[in-house]
Structures are given as structure tokens and as C-alpha cells.
């Protein structure tokens, strides 16, 4: 399993691996929004939590179809299915690798991008917390969507349609956590809901994703 994680990370940083694609997309969104909305600080500060979360979510979506598509095309997925690693572990490791190459860079870069959106001071702490707690759920749910569409040519659109509704609770609580945190309100409820969604998806979704892959490999 560690070998699989290391291989996926190594593939991501090698040429054509797509590492940095999500980060670049996130940067483009946060740079363009002030141009579209206007430079007025108050408006930007108010919509910044939502924009940052929507940006992170779309950036994550961008790289989802690569989770298994490449392995499916070159036959690795068949071979992994017959290997001594259970498919649930393959799914979990691939979701973890996706988070490490997509979610984690977004968490680390988000404070810098927050400056572009005139995010108020106390919000930075909650921005990092909410993304760090929420983005693992995006990767795991995405791994499930990708498992459903593995083997479909141009499955990206279907994947987005399947996954986006599942992302909505994370988006709502994630943005709410930042908004409340920056306003000095009570943060416990959205934080616990966000953490609960992540914990539940990480624990349960790999089983569904593994079942979907087994059906799709037939």
C-alpha cells in the first residue's frame, strides 16, 4: 500500500502528472474574481470565503477523472484488482494520493490567495482549518465518482454531475465556518459538521467505490 502511494505521488510530480494543475486553476479563479466583482474591499471580503471554497472545490474536480483513468487505460487497474491488496485499500490510497497532490497544496496556498480577495484578518486561521478538515471529503467523494465512471470515454462530465451534489454539504459548512470565524461567531457547529462529513466519507465511501470498480472491470 505504501508502494502504491509512493508510485502515485511519483507519477503526479513527473512530467504530465498534473501536479500543480489544480493549484494553477485555484490561482486563476482568485485572481480573476476581483477583476469581475470590482476592487471594492468590503464586497470582496464578504464573498471571499465562498469564492475560496468554490475555487478549491472546482480545482479538486478538475483532476478527479485522472484518479483511475490512467491506470485503467494501461491495464494497471486490472492487475491491481488481482494483486494481494484489497480494492478498498487501493481506493483509499488513491484518494489519499489525490488529496496530497491536490487538497494539501490548496490548504497551504489558500492564505496567500486570501490576500488577493481582501480576506479579513481573523478569517485566515479558519480558512486553513476549514480547508484542511473539508478537502479530504472532496478527494474521497471524488474517488467514488471516478470509480463509477472508470472505463467511460469522456466520463468527466458525468463525473462532475455525479459528484457536485455530494460536495454541497462540505461547501456549505466549509464556507460557513470561515464566515462565522471571521465574524467572531460560534464556530463549533459548522466545524463539527464539516469534520463529521469528512470522517463519515473517509470511513464508508471506499467500500462503495471499490464495489463500483469491481463492477466496471467486468
Amino acid at each position, binding site marked *: 500500500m505504501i508502494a502504491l502511494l509512493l*508510485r502515485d505521488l511519483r507519477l503526479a510530480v513527473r512530467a504530465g502528472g498534473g501536479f500543480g494543475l489544480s493549484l494553477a486553476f485555484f490561482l486563476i479563479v482568485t485572481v480573476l474574481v476581483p477583476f469581475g466583482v470590482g476592487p471594492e474591499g468590503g464586497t470582496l471580503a464578504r464573498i471571499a470565503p465562498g469564492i475560496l471554497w468554490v475555487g478549491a472545490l472546482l480545482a479538486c474536480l478538475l483532476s478527479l477523472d485522472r484518479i483511475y483513468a490512467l491506470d485503467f487505460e*494501461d*491495464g494497471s487497474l486490472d*492487475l*491491481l484488482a488481482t*494483486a494481494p*491488496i484489497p480494492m478498498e485499500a487501493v481506493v483509499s490510497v488513491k484518494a489519499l494520493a489525490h488529496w496530497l497532490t491536490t487538497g494539501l497544496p490548496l490548504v497551504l496556498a489558500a492564505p496567500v490567495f486570501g490576500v488577493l480577495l481582501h480576506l479579513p484578518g481573523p478569517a485566515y486561521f479558519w480558512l486553513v482549518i476549514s480547508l484542511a478538515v473539508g478537502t479530504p471529503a472532496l478527494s474521497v467523494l471524488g474517488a467514488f465518482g471516478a470509480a463509477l465512471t472508470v472505463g467511460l470515454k469522456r466520463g468527466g462530465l458525468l463525473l462532475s454531475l455525479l459528484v457536485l451534489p455530494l460536495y454541497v454539504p462540505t461547501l456549505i459548512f466549509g464556507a460557513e465556518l470561515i464566515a462565522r470565524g471571521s465574524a467572531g461567531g460560534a464556530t463549533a457547529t459548522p466545524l463539527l459538521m464539516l469534520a463529521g462529513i469528512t470522517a463519515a466519507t473517509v470511513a464508508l465511501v471506499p467500500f462503495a467505490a471499490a464495489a463500483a470498480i469491481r463492477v466496471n472491470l*467486468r
Partner: protein
Amino acid sequence: MAALLAIEALAVARGGIAILERVEFSLSAGQALVLRGPNGCGKTTLLRTIAGLQPPLAGRIEAAPDAIAYAAHADGLKATLSVSENLQFWAAVYGQSNRVASALAEMNLEALAQRAAMSLSAGQKRRLGLARLLVTGRPVWVLDEPTISLDAASVALFANALRAHLALGGAALIATHIDIGLAEAVTLDLTPLKARAPQDGGASGGFDEAFA
């Protein structure tokens, strides 16, 4: 001696349509079975079923858990990883990291070990794909057209590796069109095992197959 792989009254389906039935054979240590038949007769489907990638329509497949190493048409190579990195990954998956060097030597890949897999020729990729079998440490090799794009010398190299595997108590099930020069192999022609239509008593694959 107990069979490493025993197939009883197996029927397999592709896309919900039964294509082979009444398949029966068993493989003991040291035996190789070559499957023959025209294109589309179900060789690949049979091998995928035996490898556990799809459920059989009927019948039984008896093999020890973790006995089968499957090699498909595609080699499962990552273009941006080097030859040895590709092999080391599979060796680590199977917990056999100490076999990498000997597998590279056996398939004559030592000179290419540091080369990225994308710069290999088709035959060299195939040799790397077959070297993967050597690092699985599993007794039953299930091979789908293993000699595609190999030249005569490489086929001989592969036949030697196969012979060594059989001599060590392994077994092999091979679908191929080419004579791989393995005198001791038994041949099974799949043509007479073509599935009958359901109204003639053949097994039928239903829509629910995907949810079995």
C-alpha cells in the same frame, strides 16, 4: 498431487451473452495448458474469469487464494517511471522486493533498467510486463497472448522463464496463437466449447449479471 487450479463445468459470459460453457480442466504443479481458438471465442473472457476479475456464469473455479498471477494484453506500465521503478512497484505490491534484480536479468532488461518505460520498444515493454510475473511469486500464471510483439529470441527467453517456473512447481495457463516452443504443454481447443443458445439448453447471462 493436488491440482493448483481446477475448473469444473465453467460457463463464462461477455456483455451478458454466454460465450463458453462446459470448460473443464485442471492444472497441477509443472503443467502448462495452452488455450487455442479463433478470435472472439472467449479466451480473454475465460482468463479474466479465472483471474477473478468477473464472476463465472456457472461452474466452479478452485484455486488457493492468492495463487494466480494474471498478465493481460496491456502491461500496466507507467510511461514516466523507469524500468526498474515499474518492476519495483509490483514487487513491493506482492511483497517480493528481493526478486527484482533476478527478474530483470532473466528477461534481459538489465541494460535498460534506468530507461523510462516510454522510451522502450513494444517488445521491450512486453518483456518488462512479463518480468512482472517473476516478481509476483505466485504459482499459477494466467497469461493472455504473452508473446505479442516479441521477436524469436525474446519468445525463447520467455519460454525459458516459463520452463524454469514450471520446474519450480508452478503452473501456467496460456492463451496464444503462436507456438511458444514449449513441448510439454497440453493444448485445449476452445472451439467445441462454444456456448449453445439458451433455447438449446445453454447457460444464459442476464442483465442482473452486473449485480451478482
